[in-house]
């Protein structure tokens, strides 16, 4: 499936006219988020509260801390300016739905089971990191407040959040029996649609590759380092909160992955002066390809290691 992503990159490199219609991309997103939400909700409805609350607390901790240390590293070690460091920290702290889906397909193939409530963890981790990073950004000397209220509203009601959480709730209320009705639509084509989606992400990533050169090696190195750091801590914390090997792998992947639905939209609105040449490139052209190729197997390996 990663091959579809590679095909997308190649298409851009050879300057192909292949282009996804916008609405196809948007439709795939709606499908993916809603499907993940519903499936997670169904699983959640079968989960005891005691089994999930530790992981949930771990998730909140993780995604509040990631932007802090990411910001510190980016600003004081990598010497990015305050604003861009904060913008990138927001992306690293939030999560990538496609990386998550890809990881769960990877685990399925390897026959490694994982906790069904992980999509709920995904939903938990989508937003707090962005808020923390925006708070950090607002502390830049000489910067006035801006409309934090509005950004908060946009984040909570953003389509990513709404479909995920809406799906979760619907899945929980319907439970297994209700889900069976729509199962064929939300389960069967899932991998194929993910495949098309990866093709599209590949197309956009390909367009970003020239930016990597412009942004410099510094961006590449620190993006990778921070990813691996976040992911490794995530796997470790996952095991600590009692997750299975599969669950801890996913927790690591969530921690490592960088957002590209909620975070770019929020940054564009709240920190318009930040440079997409940094944050988008780091998220789409560096973090994403690394995670779906080397990252996922690495976190899975790490989880096995930590579990023993």
């Amino acid at each position: 499936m990663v091959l579809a992503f590679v095909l997308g990159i190649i298409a851009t490199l050879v300057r192909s006219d292949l282009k996804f219609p916008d609405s196809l991309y948007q439709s795939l997103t709606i499908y993916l988020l809603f499907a993940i939400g519903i499936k997670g909700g169904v699983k959640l409805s079968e989960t005891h509260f005691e089994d999930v609350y530790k992981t949930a607390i771990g998730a909140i901790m993780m995604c509040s801390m990631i932007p802090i240390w990411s910001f510190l590293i980016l600003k004081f070690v990598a010497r990015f300016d305050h604003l861009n460091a904060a913008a990138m920290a927001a992306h690293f702290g939030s999560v990538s739905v496609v990386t998550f889906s890809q990881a769960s397909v990877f685990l399925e193939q390897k026959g490694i089971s994982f906790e069904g409530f992980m999509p709920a963890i995904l939903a938990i981790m989508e937003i707090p990191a962005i808020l923390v990073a925006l708070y950090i950004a607002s502390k830049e000397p000489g910067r006035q407040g801006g409309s934090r209220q509005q950004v908060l509203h946009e984040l909570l009601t953003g389509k990513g959040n709404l479909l995920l959480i809406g799906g979760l709730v619907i899945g929980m209320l319907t439970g297994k029996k209700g889900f069976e009705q729509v199962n064929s639509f939300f389960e069967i084509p899932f991998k194929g649609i993910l495949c098309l989606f990866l093709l599209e992400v590949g197309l956009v990533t390909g367009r970003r590759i020239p930016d990597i050169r412009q942004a410099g090696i510094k961006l590449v190195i620190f993006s990778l380092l921070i990813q691996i750091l976040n992911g490794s801590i995530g796997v470790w914390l996952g095991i600590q909160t009692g997750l299975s090997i599969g669950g801890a792998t996913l927790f690591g992947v969530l921690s490592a992955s960088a957002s590209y639905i909620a975070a770019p939209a929020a940054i564009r609105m709240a920190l318009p002066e930040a440079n997409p040449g940094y944050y988008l490139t780091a998220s789409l052209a560096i973090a994403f390809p690394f995670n779906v190729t080397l990252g996922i197997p690495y976190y899975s390996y790490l989880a096995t290691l930590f579990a023993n």
Partner: protein
Amino acid sequence: MNLVPFKLLTIVATDAIEHRITKDLKSLGAKGYTRSEVEGEGIHGKHFSDWEGRNIKIETLVKEEVAIQIMEKLSSDYFGKYSIICFLSTVEVLRPERFA
């Protein structure tokens, strides 16, 4: 045919601020507007996908004073920070009372 000169103000901006702009338009007295989804390239690079943020184009027929007020609002609130441009042209309309 009673053609009356009017101002057509065209705004091209990132969709992140679409709702704020249309709210501004209405509060400053525009009676309507037409929007469409566009793509573009400018000093802030390309805007061709959802990740990069799409552009929207808003056109509104208004009286000159209203146009000036809107442009002042746009200048003070968005210029310099957000991807946005605007330009003003003179057109002729029928039924001017419908736009002012």
